[in-house]
């Protein structure tokens, strides 16, 4: 036990001596850092100091930007609040105005208006040069059509022709060089009974063939009418039932019309062949009373089939007739028949024509038979897909007429021409007509016409 205590004393002494030695050796180790290491550390400390300074400056700049952003946000919030107040004020003012002012009238849809009036029609100006004569502007025509619709089933329509036309050169020198005439082409009241039938009454365009209803200047591709149309009246005063009904499921239609009109009359109250007046059985009687010149109206009608194969491809075939007494004495019958055909083969090719025959009795010549026919073909050059300027607006047309008047006269006419479509409603038409006639006053001529459909 005594030995163990002695050993501990020795251990304690060694530790104390070691500590003392260590404490004495430490200053010697610090004194051993080289000057280079010290300078390196000094540089490092200086660099760190610079970086701290740079970061401090950066922080100050960011602090300034942040303060600016805060200010902008505050300004925007102020503006938003102001805008909101303005909108609220406007809404309050609108509500106040709506409570004090009457409600604005809601416009009525125009399509629901039950009555409507409007004007359609056409206008033409014509220049002609007949062989052996001076050329001139021979006609100006204004042909308005007035339409008044009352509801879904009633329509009143009337067409006028205001024509300024040169008088013949061999007329009486006392007569003016030109005359303005006003004709009532038609004026009829239409009542649509149902989908298939309409009652018409008034001055009617007669469905003797199709020409009289398709003769407006911008519809007819020639500036003048077929010669044979002179054998039948274009209009008459009376009443008519007309319409169309589907034939099967192909889209084909059966067209029909039946009518009674005053009909032709005598221009001089006689039954002479030359006094037949197709203009109508309305006029001044010999007793100075305006009334029918005779009491027997004529009757007529048309039946036709229209077959559309597809849009722009169709065929129409029709037969029509009219008959009645024409002279005042009621001794002579006037009868006319027309066969008509129209064919479309695409949007560029059209062919149509009519055969017309009329027969009437007379005091001096007995039965007079007039007959004639015309055929017309038109082809729009747009069908050729040519790229020449303006050529796609041009349609070439040709027509042949032949008439025999039943009193020894006959005329054959061959016409060539063209239609230039300035627009779909403004047409420039031209034709050169070669005539062979028993009438020596007839001659070849060239006709130019500007037509507008409105």
């Amino acid at each position, binding site marked *: 036990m005594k030995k163990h205590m002695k050993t501990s004393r020795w251990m304690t002494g060694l530790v104390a001596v070691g500590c003392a030695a260590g404490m004495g050796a430490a200053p010697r180790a610090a004194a051993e850092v080289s000057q280079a290491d010290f300078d390196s550390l000094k540089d490092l400390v200086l660099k760190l100091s610079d970086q701290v300074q740079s970061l401090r400056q950066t922080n100050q700049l960011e602090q300034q930007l942040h303060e600016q952003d805060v200010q902008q946000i505050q300004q925007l919030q102020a503006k938003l609040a102001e805008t909101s107040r303005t909108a609220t004020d406007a809404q309050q003012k609108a509500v106040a105005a709506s409570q004090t002012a009457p409600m604005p009238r809601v416009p009525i849809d125009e399509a629901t208006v039950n009555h409507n009036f409007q004007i359609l029609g056409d206008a033409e100006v014509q220049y002609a040069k007949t062989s052996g004569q001076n050329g001139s502007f021979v006609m100006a025509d204004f042909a308005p059509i007035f*339409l008044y619709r009352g509801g879904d089933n009633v329509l009143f*329509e009337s067409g006028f022709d205001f024509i300024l036309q040169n008088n013949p050169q061999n007329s009486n020198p006392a007569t003016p060089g030109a005359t303005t005439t006003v004709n009532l082409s038609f004026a009829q009241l239409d009542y649509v009974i149902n989908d298939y039938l309409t009652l018409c009454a008034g001055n009617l365009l007669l469905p003797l063939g199709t020409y009289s209803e398709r003769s407006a200047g911008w519809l007819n591709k020639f500036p003048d009418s077929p010669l044979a149309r002179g054998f039948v009246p274009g209009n008459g005063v009376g009443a008519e039932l007309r319409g169309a009904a589907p034939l099967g499921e192909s889209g084909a239609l059966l067209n029909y019309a039946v009518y009674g009109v005053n009909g032709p009359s005598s221009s001089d109250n006689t039954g002479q062949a030359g006094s037949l007046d197709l203009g109508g059985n309305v006029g001044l009687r010999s007793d100075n009373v305006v009334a029918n010149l005779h009491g027997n109206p004529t009757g007529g009608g048309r039946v036709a089939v229209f077959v559309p194969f597809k849009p722009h491809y169709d065929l129409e075939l029709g037969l029509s007739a009219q008959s009645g007494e024409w002279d005042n004495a009621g001794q002579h019958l006037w009868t006319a028949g027309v066969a008509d055909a129209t064919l479309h083969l695409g949007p560029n090719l059209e062919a149509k024509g009519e055969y017309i025959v009329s027969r009437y009795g007379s005091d001096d010549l007995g039965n007079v038979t007039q007959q004639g026919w015309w055929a017309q073909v038109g082809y729009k050059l747009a069908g050729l897909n040519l790229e020449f300027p303006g050529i796609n607006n041009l349609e070439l047309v040709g027509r042949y007429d032949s008439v025999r008047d039943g009193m020894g006269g006959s005329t054959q006419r061959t016409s060539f021409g063209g239609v230039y479509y300035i627009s779909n409603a403004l047409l420039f038409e031209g034709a050169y007509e070669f005539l062979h006639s028993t009438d020596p006053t007839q001659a070849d001529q060239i006709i130019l016409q500007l037509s507008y459909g409105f």
Partner: protein
Amino acid sequence: MQTTMVAALGALLLGVIALTPGCADQAAATGTSATASTRHQLTGAELYSIHCNRCHPERYPTERTAAQWKTITLHMQVRANIPGNQARMILKYLQDNSGR
């Protein structure tokens, strides 16, 4: 005399047509009409091309207002012998595309 008989027969025929709207309307309502059962129902645009181009260059629907087209279509329904149902389809096409 013959003229009178022909006119009377024609008037009789059209009188029968005039008195049959009920039958036609009933057939249309039940979907048994010829038009309704057509394999390819013609559209208003097709009917417009079929009928209007027969006599004149087609007019643009925008040339007229809806009310004007209603009057013009009624005018042409009578003038060009267009059945009423087809005229209504043409009118709808024109009004849908009309000028305002």
